[in-house]
């Protein structure tokens, strides 16, 4: 079977330090995967390799069975993969609506055209409007993105990511900096928009992880040391040692 996303012995070095040391992972269509691991383990780097921000030193990345390693980010995006960033990365001088519309345009085939008015692109506008409502930013429709609060910017970040309707979505700490209630709402939203799609998300919040994921991948020191259902991962000794710490496995989860 072809996996939605497959990593084969992926490696990445910066200078002399090897950060990703032979990562292997195969995510099936429609699976929701949480990627966890200690700080600096290479989760974001893994996302960067997949999405084309960095070029792997060696190894393969396959999207729906096709090689994408070495391709530029926009090429990968056009093939149906979209990602968000851990450190907010939006268009600060554009309004919320414009931000979202930018995320929509290519996927609807508008490309580089300068022979059509944006105002006439009903499908794109409608999609942007809908999205805006879903991420609860419709009241800030014409506010410039810089003027949003941090949490609102995070929401917009995710909005842009899912705007294009990509099939494979990577979210890097989507709920960081959000309050509990917002986190809860966003998890719902993410679940909603990723129905039938493949999702990878990095999270440190175990509540989110266990609430969202079908499977969990644990990255430690540039390797995927475990990839399994939440229950099994939580029970995994190695994972507890490397990541969860003494009492977190139960205590923190319970707190939510």
């Amino acid at each position: 079977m072809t996996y939605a996303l497959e990593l084969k012995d992926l490696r990445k070095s910066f200078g002399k330090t090897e950060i990703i040391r032979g990562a292997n992972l195969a995510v099936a269509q429609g699976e929701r995967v949480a990627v966890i691991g200690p700080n600096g383990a290479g989760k974001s780097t893994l996302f960067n390799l997949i999405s084309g921000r960095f070029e792997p030193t060696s190894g393969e990345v396959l999207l729906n069975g096709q090689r994408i390693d070495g391709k530029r980010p926009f090429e990968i995006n056009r093939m149906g993969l979209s990602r968000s960033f851990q450190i907010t990365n939006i268009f600060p001088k554009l309004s919320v609506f414009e931000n979202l519309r930018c995320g929509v345009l290519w996927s609807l085939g508008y490309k580089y055209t300068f022979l059509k008015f944006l105002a006439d692109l009903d499908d794109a506008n409608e999609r942007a409007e809908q999205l805006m409502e879903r991420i609860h930013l419709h009241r800030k429709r014409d506010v410039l993105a810089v003027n949003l609060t941090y949490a609102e910017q995070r929401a917009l970040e995710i909005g842009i990511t899912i705007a294009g309707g990509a099939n494979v979505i990577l979210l890097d700490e989507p709920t960081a900096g959000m309050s509990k209630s917002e986190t809860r709402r966003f998890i719902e939203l993410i679940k909603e928009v990723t129905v039938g799609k493949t999702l990878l998300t990095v999270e440190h919040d175990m509540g989110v992880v266990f609430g969202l994921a079908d499977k969990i991948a644990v990255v430690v020191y540039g390797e995927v040391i475990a990839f399994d259902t939440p229950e099994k991962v939580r029970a995994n000794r190695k994972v507890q040692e490397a990541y969860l710490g003494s009492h977190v496995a139960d205590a923190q989860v319970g707190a939510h």
Partner: protein
Amino acid sequence: MLKVENLHAFYGKSHVLHGVNFEVGEGEIVALLGRNGSGRSTTAKAIMGMVECTGAVDWKGQPTLGRKPYEIAHLGIGYVPENRDIFPKLTVHQNLMLGQKRANQTGRWSFDDMYEMFPRLKERQHTEAGVLSGGEQQMLTLCRTLMGDPDLIIIDEPTEGLAPKIVELVGQYLQKLKQRGVSVLLIEQKLTIAMAISDRALVMGHGSIVFQGTPDSLRADAYIRKEWLEV
């Protein structure tokens, strides 16, 4: 040590803090809790002289309001901002160097202490800080401020984006700070850790303090928790 009285703060024309009053004593860990947007970060910035404000802030009996941030820093208040303001083009080590107020300043903390606290940083000490992982950056900001040898450290959401294990670690280190006589004003979102390590808790809502007390009393006060902390 730190006494904040009737503090009002403004961003341009918008009035964000409406008369904040509290104190932080010597060697005390005080948690400042509250929802998103309640004004906790603004309080921190106001103390550091980074926003326009009125009222009074006394530090060791000296008024600090109206002073420049660097002057306040020299008086012994350290600040760890919430958005991981590391200096991306400088190496980890250089970032730490900038934490020192003067070259080769010696204080309670040395580079080695920092590297011991977070071995990850030691490994990355000659890397540009901009490429650090989110969590590593968080550690770095904390250490950088410590290098300035403050008597009071204001930490804005230090555990954001840290792996659970490291969160525990940070908690332990804050305790250690306290042992070395440093007061801490901890701005937190995560109740669990804040309650576990703090001596006193403040709850902020709509730009003023709505609760002051021990963690235990806060735990007991379901109304405050419900109204001002959870949804």
